[in-house]
Structure formats: C-alpha cells, structure tokens
C-alpha cells in the first residue's frame, strides 16, 4: 500500500460533497468535500505502489475540467487510470445532483 498526497491550485468556487465507489477489486472509493483554502488537496491510499506520476496526471486532467476547490480522498484497490477517470466524472455528477 502507498499513501500519496497532492496539492493543486483551484478556482474560488467550492466543490460540493459527494461519495462514490467501493474499495473492491479493480475499483476505488472517492470522498469529496469542499476545500476551505482555495486549493484542491488529494489524498490517495492505493493498494498498488509506484504510480504517483500516473495519479498526478489523471488528477491534473480531471481538475483542468473541474477546478472547484475540493478535498478529495481516494481509497483505491487497483483501479486502472480509465476507471479512476470515470469514477471522478461520476463523483462530479453525484455532487451536482
């Protein structure tokens, strides 16, 4: 298991709370809360070590489209970058519903 932490600049607009996913094989759970310091903080616990660069790239691509300030916590059980991107997208939809 590896624990990663990233910090990104964010828009003034705050994200809304959302929870999505499951810590099951090839899947992940995401908890999103609004951030109070106009930054987006991401904390990732992943069962697969050694993919920090990939995580950073997937998150950067996501945040380019959704810059709302958020605290994002991810519990990952070996999801592929594609699955991660889909779950992030789903989280945004849930937060807006």
């Amino acid at each position, binding site marked *: *298991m590896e624990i990663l932490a990233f910090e990104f600049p964010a828009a003034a607009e705050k994200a809304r*709370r959302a*929870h999505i996913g*499951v*810590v099951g094989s090839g899947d992940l*759970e995401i*908890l999103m809360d609004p951030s109070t310091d106009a930054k987006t903080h991401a904390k990732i*616990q992943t069962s697969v070590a050694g993919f920090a660069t990939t995580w950073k790239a997937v998150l950067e691509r996501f945040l380019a489209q959704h810059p709302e300030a958020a605290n994002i916590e991810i519990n*990952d059980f070996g999801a592929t970058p594609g699955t991660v991107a889909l779950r992030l997208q789903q989280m945004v939809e849930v937060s807006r519903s």
Partner: protein
Amino acid sequence: MTFTPTLSKDVLELSSRRSYIELNARDRARQLLDDGTFHELLGPFDRVESPWLPIQGIVPQADDGCVVAKGKIDGQPAVVIAMEGKFQGGSIGEVCGMKMAEAFRLARQDNEKGIPTRAVLSLESGGVRLQEANMGELVIAEIYAEMVALRKYTPLIVVITGPTGCFGGMSLAAGLATYVVMTRQARLSMNGPEVIEQEAGKAEFEASNKPFVWSVNGGAQRYATGFADVLVEDDAVAITAAVRDLFRKGQPAQLRTDQYELFIKRLSSLDTSKQWTGEDIRNAWKENAQ
C-alpha cells in the same frame, strides 16, 4: 414499413426488472426502506474506518463495508444494515461488526421505550475478517447476543441475495434471524466451498462444481430444507415486498432456533458413511417433517 419487435414475455419481464444483486450496500438499504426515508448513520464522511487494515498494508473503506440506515418500512420505524460484499468479501471486522451490533442494540432500546422498530440485515459476507480475527470474533458474539435480544420485540429479517452469499459467522447470524429471504443465486453455509475442499479434499466437496455447490447451499435448496422462509427472484421490488409482507405477518409460531429438537432428529437420521446429494437431504427432511 414499421418494425414491430416480437420479444417473448420472459424477455420483457426480465428487462423491466431491477436487480437487487447488482445494487451496492447503500442502494440496497435505500431500496428496502420506504421512499425518501433513508437516513444513514455513521456514513462514509464520519470516517469510522478500520484502524487495523492500513497497519497490514490493506486499503480501508470509509464505512468499513457496512451501511447502517434508519428509516421506515411500511410506515413503521426501521433500521436496515447492509453489508458490502465487494469490500474485503463482506468480512466482519471490529468497526463494521460493532456498527451492526450497536444498530441492533439501539433498535432494541427503541422497542423497549415503546417505539416499535423493525430490523433488516442484508448480508454479503465471507465471515470474520481474518486481519482482525479476534476482534471480529468478539464483535460477532455481540451481534448474536443483540439479535437474540432484539427478535423478542420485532421480526428480524435477514436478506441473502448473492453474489457473495453468506458464510462463516454471518451464516449463524442468518440462523438466528426470525425470517430469512433468499434468491436462487444466493448461498448460505457455515464453511465456504473452497474451505471445505481445502480441508477435506475434492472427494468431499468439489468447489469448482457450481451445480453441486448450489445443490447443497444454494437458495432453492436452503428454502426447500427450511433454512430460508421465502425464495424470491432477483428483483428489488419483489425483495422489498417480501420483507414488508414478513413484517405484516409478524412473529412466527416458533423461531427456527427453537426447533432444535427437530433439526437434531433430522441430522441424526443421516447416514454419514455415504455422500449425500441435495435431493437426499430434502427427502430425509420430508421423512422427519415433525
């Protein structure tokens, strides 16, 4: 020219059905409660997760795989506890087990205070979580004690639909329930097929032989041999209706656990020198119906 699809009645019926098996634990709890009454207790944002898994290099889940929700069933106060089978095989660790035991305890206290509170447990579980073995076993003992205390006040309904099924400690919890609802896809057994094969060999139990496994511990067999009270299709609406109807039925004449003399009689009629099939057991049960 217009194209008129000619789908069979079976296909149309299947396509209009909403699967319960495919729902996650949270959606199962929401499904079993009356519309708009779902209120989760100790949800993911409360972050009451297993402190033991990360120490052992395993990623935890924010709700520890157990969803506890208050709401109403058929207009009456109710608590629904749903296990998430995809997280650590629905295993019972300290946190998720304690959430379950405390939910039962609070439901009993509400009943004692004159607030009739119903209880449903939707199980997907491989049993105790090996990484938290001792604490898991202790909390399972608490769950049993609370179930026995609570079922005096209200029918306590266990729902087992699969795909994981219900094994180990939680299979005994199912045994303590007032009523058990199962689907054909579900399995209910103390030891899982792989465990039996590993311990006793392929001749005793062939875990890869699915028809054999289901003929022994599948929902249809469990229903036919009196370990389950209702056999339903994998249909969220039908399962919700089955639970509601059991609450309407109220307390049974006799709890399954009070029928131990009958079960002992049936078990002692079995000739253990030969391999029994599911059908043999159904027949033996019929011969010892009383």
